[in-house]
């Protein structure tokens, strides 16, 4: 991690000095424990504060479509690089306007899981490749690294960046994956009424803050359907039907585009597993149309193309 940090600083300073980019989007140490803050480094001095650790979960691709101006460099993990590729395919950004600094990633630590294990927000962490030692209230707890990783990192199938201009460090071994399917199958196996109850309960705490939408690199629409009033597709209240209408469409809008970066789940202030719906669609798109989002720049999004032989057994 230290090596990667210094390499990032070195590359960022070089790019800025050579005026190849206007700014570098990266991370700097956060002001609260266990979160590294996204930052924009515009000068070599600012580049010196860049860092890389296991708390750089934020998907920096989210800042790209909203940005105006010239070329920027951006630090990208596997999932982030797929989001960037997706944005290029959807004509939201130009490939030549981003310089992608790829960083192979072995997973980001979930702050909520660490705090739950420690029972306190005042935490200090010492980590290596397999274990994490959590120091809180004068006690030390040792847990396996895989236990405190974000859920989406545990099932990650694309740890290495797929599109990049420069790669930092050696590529890491790709995990076997397939965990998305297993997680989806668990819900699929429930009887219908149980499934409804499960989602009813899951979304009952939603406060409609739209953090999941705002954190998502795919949600770049200038006007979101929830803000439409003529016609109004979705009420503005926390009525259970309104909440579910919002979540159904939020997930559906990500169908065939979601890279399972976990931004939505990380942003949720009430810890709803909002990925449950998006990953179901991710699985369906893969099974029905053999498509995985963000793996190739020239790929057509699955809902923008068709095959004559597409499955249609559900149609009378």
């Amino acid at each position, binding site marked *: 991690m230290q090596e990667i940090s210094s390499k990032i600083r070195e590359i960022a300073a070089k790019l800025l000095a050579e005026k190849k980019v206007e700014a570098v989007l990266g991370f700097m140490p956060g002001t609260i424990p266990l979160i590294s803050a996204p930052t924009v480094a515009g000068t070599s001095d600012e580049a010196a504060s860049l860092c890389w650790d296991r708390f750089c979960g934020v998907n920096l691709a989210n800042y790209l479509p909203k940005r105006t101006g010239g070329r920027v460099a951006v630090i990208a993990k596997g999932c982030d690089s797929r989001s960037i590729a997706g944005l290029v395919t959807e004509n939201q950004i130009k490939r030549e306007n981003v310089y992608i600094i790829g960083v192979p990633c072995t997973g980001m630590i979930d702050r909520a899981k660490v705090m739950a294990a420690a029972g306190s927000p005042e935490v200090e962490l010492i980590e290596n490749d397999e274990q994490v030692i959590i120091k809180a209230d004068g006690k030390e707890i040792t847990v396996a690294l895989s236990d405190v990783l974000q859920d989406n990192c545990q099932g990650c199938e694309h740890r290495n960046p797929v599109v990049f201009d420069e790669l930092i460090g050696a590529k890491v071994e790709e995990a076997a994956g397939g965990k998305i399917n297993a997680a*989806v199958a668990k*819900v*699929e196996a429930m009887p*219908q*009424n*149980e*499934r*409804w*109850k*499960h*989602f009813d309960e899951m979304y009952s705490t939603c406060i409609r803050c739209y953090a999941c939408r705002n954190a998502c690199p795919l949600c770049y629409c200038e006007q979101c*359907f929830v803000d439409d009033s003529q*016609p109004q*597709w979705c*009420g503005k*209240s*926390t*009525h*259970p*039907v*309104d909440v*579910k*209408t919002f979540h*159904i*469409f939020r*997930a*559906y809008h990500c*169908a*065939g585009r979601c890279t399972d970066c976990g931004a939505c789940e990380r942003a949720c202030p009430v810890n709803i597993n909002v990925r449950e*719906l998006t990953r*179901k*669609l991710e699985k*369906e*798109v893969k099974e*029905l*149309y053999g498509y995985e989002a963000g793996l190739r720049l020239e790929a057509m999004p*699955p*809902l*923008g193309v*068709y*095959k*004559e032989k*597409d*499955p*249609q057994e*559900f*149609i*009378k």
Partner: protein
Amino acid sequence: MADKKSEIRNPKSEIGNWQPKIIAFLCNWCSYAGADLAGVGRMQYPPNVRVIRIPCSGRMNPKFILAALRSGADGILVSGCHPGDCHYLSGNYFARRKFALFRSLLDYMGIEDGRIHFSWVSAAEGERFAEVISEVTEAVRAIGPSHRLNRKVMGRR
């Protein structure tokens, strides 16, 4: 004018004389003409269906389906031209992908089977249109009134 409140439905009290309300989104070129043919041919089918004409099944937005359920529909039918017969050549192919994903998402969330239906009915298939409507009406009747995504039934928290 009827009091708006009296329209708010209470599924328990109406079980006895309940009739399903079904919204059918029909494509202008095939299914709508098929419905017309069924009418001209005086074919009998259940009167529970309310037709909304759309230019093409490709015009169908999944938002329409939830909007109908939210405002109290008990069943939805979306019908278009058979594959290969689209007036706009490919609208129904794109629609098919949209429907497949939306249907599986709603099913995953626990919306009853038989609430939402899709069909291909051509302009020459008046009889088939009547059959489809009967089938859909029976399926919706079997599962009863819709409350899972009905904004009118569930009370405020």
